[in-house]
């Protein structure tokens, strides 16, 4: 199931996270599970601010890494869904939008 590209995303506020060596470590305090993000994952994580949609995040990714817009969007949506399934991020409908 793909997530609408217009939906905005925010970090789960219950998490602790830190960037080190261009990678990001995220810890869920409730279960002490540690998650790691690579370079591009860290880039997206830093830009997830509760205001940007998957499309906007993908555009930033394409501008900063050598990747086509289509692939950037596909990769961004895949990562957001993966992070959502792990409860690292939560989605919210964009202003004026309709949540499915």
């Amino acid at each position, binding site marked *: 199931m793909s997530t609408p590209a217009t939906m905005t995303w925010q970090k789960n506020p219950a998490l602790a996270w830190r960037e080190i060596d261009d990678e990001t470590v995220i810890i869920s305090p409730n279960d002490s599970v*540690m998650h790691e993000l690579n370079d591009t994952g860290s880039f997206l994580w830093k830009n997830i601010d509760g205001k940007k949609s998957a499309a906007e995040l993908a555009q930033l990714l394409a501008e900063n890494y050598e990747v086509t817009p289509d692939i950037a969007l596909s990769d961004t949506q895949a990562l957001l869904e993966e992070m959502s399934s792990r409860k690292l991020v939560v989605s919210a409908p964009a202003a004026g939008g309709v949540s499915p």
Partner: protein
Amino acid sequence: MNAPLATSGRGPRQQFELSIGCVPLRLHISDAQLFGAASERYAAFTDVAEQPINIALNDATLTASEPAGFGYEFEGAVLQAFSSGIRFDGVKNQYALDSLLRVFLSWKLLEHHGFLLHAATVIRGGRAYVFTGRSGAGKSTVASLSPQGSVFTDEISLLRRENGIWRAYGTPFWGDFKAAGSNSSAPVAGIFRLLQAPENRVAALRPMAILRTLLPNVLFFSAEAASTSRLLEILSRAATEIPGYNLSFRKNPTFWEVLPA
């Protein structure tokens, strides 16, 4: 000062002052047997300091104040932090006391840029070599292969950043080696992840790999986001500032030959 304070319904309340990692504590204990066991167990860590943190064992009368945001329960023993002090309730023996002290220190050290680590610490040339790993990794083996008097602890090490320098402290929390621990500190030479192997070898680790080594071996009991975030900040700094290595080692003292000076 370790003397009777007052007479309660359960016998004279006694106090015992100690310092672990420069965190001054004053235990208030009414149970004579528990007082005797604690006095013996923490004998090397007795200290008198300004404004110790009061910890009342099985005695609610000392800490009637506002909750201070941390609590923990372990096998019926309960830790509760209050603005005026700490309560340990349901403490039936010295082992329960020891467990709650570890839990409490793991939280309190966040204020002191420090943490507790499953690690043996051995002093060589005035510097602390911190050997970390879970049970069975070889912490007690490393301690037993090190010169007498050089072992700060064989089980739980305490690391703190002070004036820009990371120091390792001995603790009274020991493992199989039964070392009582040393109430001393030394600058940290490095953190070594123990891997038992047929030959001795060290390999330097990047900060991210050091952080991966530290995280599963840190003692931490808070499920609160702010405390966890603070811990991660401290550990990230340690991983960036302290050299870290994988240490493959044989069960004999020759491993010291491959360690960085």
